[in-house]
């Protein structure tokens, strides 16, 4: 306890409450509650059990408690397993530990508006949570197949399959447009959180792959689509699959959030 406090020059005790903004220089550890913005030229630690209702702007931010507000860090943001963040996170590096709850926009990488100081990639630290099992080649190639042929097969099977079918088509249709085709800005960031998020997204299309077997019965048209899709898969899916995402259990081991169409993370 004493050592920790020596590290952080300012501490707001567990019973402490700040009603107003905090600014200036030096490190600041919040164990209590801050209702206001924190703008510091230093590190900010939101300890477990602590609550910050307001924006935090600092060099580095470590969150083990709860923050309802945006996080903007010049160097890095780390959200530990007990951390909860409801707000947008902007920093060149962002690490989100398994168990953390994050809800908001996530903006990382070199294009983030804050200064970048060429810090090393944090990806391995967060990806340690899922076991790095390589995606089976078939699954990797077939994932996008589910997208296009599923749409093609819908004409024949839509009425029979009903709601489940429709859901499948929607997923299949959404994915290539929002993740693979328009993905680059987020993907390029190459951060742990983005990959984690992508993993979650990829999971649903993997499941419909097997039911989509009837496609072959459709003959040449389906085959042609499939060939195209496979080709597309080799180009579109190549970077994500080379990261060694494991096929299924990954969704459970990782922080539970899903990136929505507008880039929201849900805890």
């Amino acid at each position, binding site marked *: 306890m*004493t050592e920790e*406090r020596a590290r952080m*020059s*300012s*501490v*707001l*005790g*567990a*019973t*402490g*409450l*700040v*009603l*107003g*903004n*905090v*600014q*200036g*220089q*030096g490190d*600041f550890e919040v164990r*209590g509650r801050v209702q*206001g913005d924190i703008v*510091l030229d230093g590190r900010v630690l939101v300890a477990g059990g602590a609550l910050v209702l307001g924006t935090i702007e600092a060099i580095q931010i470590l969150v083990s408690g709860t923050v309802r507000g945006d996080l903007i860090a010049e160097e890095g943001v780390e959200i530990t397993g007990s951390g909860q963040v409801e707000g947008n996170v902007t920093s060149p590096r962002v690490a989100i530990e398994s168990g953390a709850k994050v809800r908001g926009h996530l903006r990382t990488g070199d294009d983030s508006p804050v200064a970048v100081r060429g810090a090393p990639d944090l990806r391995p630290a967060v990806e340690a949570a899922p076991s790095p099992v390589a995606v089976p080649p078939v699954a990797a190639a077939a994932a996008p197949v589910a997208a296009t042929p599923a749409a093609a097969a819908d004409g024949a099977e839509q009425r029979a399959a009903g709601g489940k079918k429709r859901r499948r088509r929607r997923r299949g249709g959404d994915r290539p447009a929002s993740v693979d085709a328009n993905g680059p800005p987020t993907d390029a960031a190459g951060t742990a959180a983005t990959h984690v998020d992508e993993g979650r997204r990829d999971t649903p299309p993997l499941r419909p792959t097997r039911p989509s077997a009837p496609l072959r019965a459709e003959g040449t048209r389906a085959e042609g689509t499939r060939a195209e899709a496979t080709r597309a898969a080799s180009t579109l899916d190549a970077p994500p699959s080379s990261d060694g995402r494991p096929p299924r259990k990954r969704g459970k081991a990782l922080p539970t959030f899903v990136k929505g169409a507008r880039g929201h993370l849900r805890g």
Partner: protein
Amino acid sequence: MADTIISSGLIIDGNLKADGSVRIDGQVLGRVQSSAAVELGPTSSVSADVQGQRVSVAGTVLGNVQASERVDLLSGARLTGDVRAPRLTIADGASFRGKVDMEAGHD
């Protein structure tokens, strides 16, 4: 060591309240309230009321100081405001401008 420490360089633009002890070397532009000891270091500056069980002042305070036990104005302290406390010491070199109320019965 105090539960809450506001080191020099840190500015709190608002009120600070705590049940534990508070040590301030930075700046607080609002009230400081604690049910335990409040220590205002030489570099500290508080521009509103300070309330605590024991309040020791070595920095600058622009506001009233109230303590349930005692107030100590240390050397180098600059206090502009009233003091309400059952006990009060003013060290040599402290500057104080305001009223003193040492009557028991309040806080």
